[in-house]
């Protein structure tokens, strides 16, 4: 897979505050890459830097293997923070201004307005739009010249449940066309539902990254019990892939290191002559995992 965006040791300092601290990550072509982190963790600053509006203090990045230029910008459609349009211009005229800048075909304007469900509102001024309509207009603007990559910053922020569902559905439909999507969000649920890959940020630092399945779901808890717990505990001490374990009444709660599953544990227990009476895999709630990830 080709690398669409490569970030290498990128940093941004505001005085003594490190908004982004030596961040490195790579976005592969065709992935839906989530930047996940609480408010103020450096998601927007990171996107601002790779989109040429914030000057990095250190480090570098490249789009499609090149530096940022007019040519690379035209392959990327992006929304940063709030939808930014001229309030006194109609939806159509706003998109005309953007089509000029992007060198996009003006015939796409009507098509994109239809795609985001604003076809009948093309002559309404931007200031008359609801927040949901503004977000959808921003999506239409980002997709105006059919870019290979979409960068979306909190695209469902402030929307009602129906609006959120619509935008997510739209993102998945766009991704199904083979486009790469980079999505910043503080909503775990959103990243889990939409993204294929995720990078978790905390105070500007990369906490962890990888496929969503590995980061958010693999660390399941196992609950084991046996007739006699003593040999189980002894064995758990020695097994190298046990991340942690703790005895609770008549059972043991444990977590495994990445890449191991309950099958491995069961096999090794049996090989050592320990027969488990219970082996339950329990997924931790996503929120709990997320809080653990950003706390540790």
């Amino acid at each position, binding site marked *: 897979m080709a690398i669409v965006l490569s970030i290498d040791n990128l940093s941004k300092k505001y005085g003594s505050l490190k908004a982004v601290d030596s961040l490195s990550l790579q976005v592969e072509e065709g992935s839906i890459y989530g930047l996940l982190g609480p408010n103020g963790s450096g998601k927007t600053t990171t996107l*601002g830097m790779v*989109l*040429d*509006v*914030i*000057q990095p203090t250190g480090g570098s990045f490249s789009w499609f293997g090149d530096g940022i230029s*007019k040519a690379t*910008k*035209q392959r990327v459609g*992006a929304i*940063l*923070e*709030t939808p*930014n*349009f*001229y*309030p*006194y*211009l109609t939806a159509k*005229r706003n998109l*005309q*201004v*953007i089509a*000029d*800048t*992007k*060198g996009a075909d003006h015939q796409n304007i009507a098509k994109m307005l239809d795609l985001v469900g604003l076809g009948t509102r093309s002559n309404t001024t931007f200031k008359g739009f609801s927040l949901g309509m503004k977000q959808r207009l921003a999506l239409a603007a980002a997709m105006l010249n059919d870019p290979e990559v979409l960068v979306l910053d909190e695209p469902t922020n402030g929307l009602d449940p129906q609006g959120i569902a619509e935008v997510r559905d739209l993102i998945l439909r766009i991704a199904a066309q083979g486009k790469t999507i980079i999505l910043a969000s503080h909503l775990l649920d959103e990243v889990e539902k939409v993204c294929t890959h995720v990078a978790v940020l905390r105070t500007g630092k990369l906490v962890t990254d990888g496929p969503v399945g590995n980061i958010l779901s693999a660390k399941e808890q196992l609950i084991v019990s046996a007739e006699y717990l003593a040999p189980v505990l002894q064995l758990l001490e020695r097994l190298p892939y046990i991340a942690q374990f703790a005895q609770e009444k008549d059972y043991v709660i444990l977590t495994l290191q990445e890449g191991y599953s309950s099958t491995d544990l069961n096999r090794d227990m049996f090989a050592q002559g320990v027969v488990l009476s219970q082996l339950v895999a329990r997924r931790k709630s996503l929120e709990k995992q997320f809080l653990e990830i950003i706390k540790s």
Partner: protein
Amino acid sequence: MNLLRTEFRKIFPYRTFWIILAVYVLLLLLILYTSSSIQINNKALGDETFQLPGLWMRLTYVAHFFNLLLGILVIVLITDEYSFRTIRQQVIDGLSRAEVVLAKFYVVLALAVFSTVFILVLGLYFGLVYSSDKSMQALFSQIDYLPYYFVQAVAYMTLAMLFAFIVRKSGLAIIAFIAYTKIVEPLIHFNLPDHIDKYFPMKALDSLTPMPGQDLFGQLTSPIEQLSPAMATLPALLYVGLFLLLTYAVLKMRDL
């Protein structure tokens, strides 16, 4: 030129733009109309004011006061881009910082063309109606004040543009622009000898449209040393270049 077309797309439906432009046009018309109907010693002042070929000098001198209004218009158009955050979006969408500056400079040029043509039309109208000498010679012999006025208008608006990009808030930028042109620089002039301060931006720019009858005035008091319009053109153009470079440097250094 595509940049200018896009700027026009943003500006033409914008009511604030037309209001400021209308105020500019109406104030200029009002001043000329008033001076044409004032009677001094049973003689209409207009008869004096609108005599060709001196009309062009008097007209551009009057018009130069209104450059401030054009500057404010430019400040409004630029600071709007900051408050709507559209400047950021345009850079994301593909403009370089140099193109952002260039696009606004094209607007400055377009506004200067507009005001110069407007003054040309005013001059032709009032000259042909009120002047006793309506010959081609009288009409065009001193029309070089118009290109001087054009350079002056461009330079004033480019300075306004620099203030807008530095300050980014419309109210503060307008105050800074007026404070600099009308208070700060005159105070500096006050403390410097004429042969140095005549090259200062505001003084050099104002030399492009000299005050009518200043020679006479100078004979009565001590003569004021200032550049002739022809001599002031090169410094004025250099200032335009300097303001543009500074604007670009400010954009380049800062986050959007």
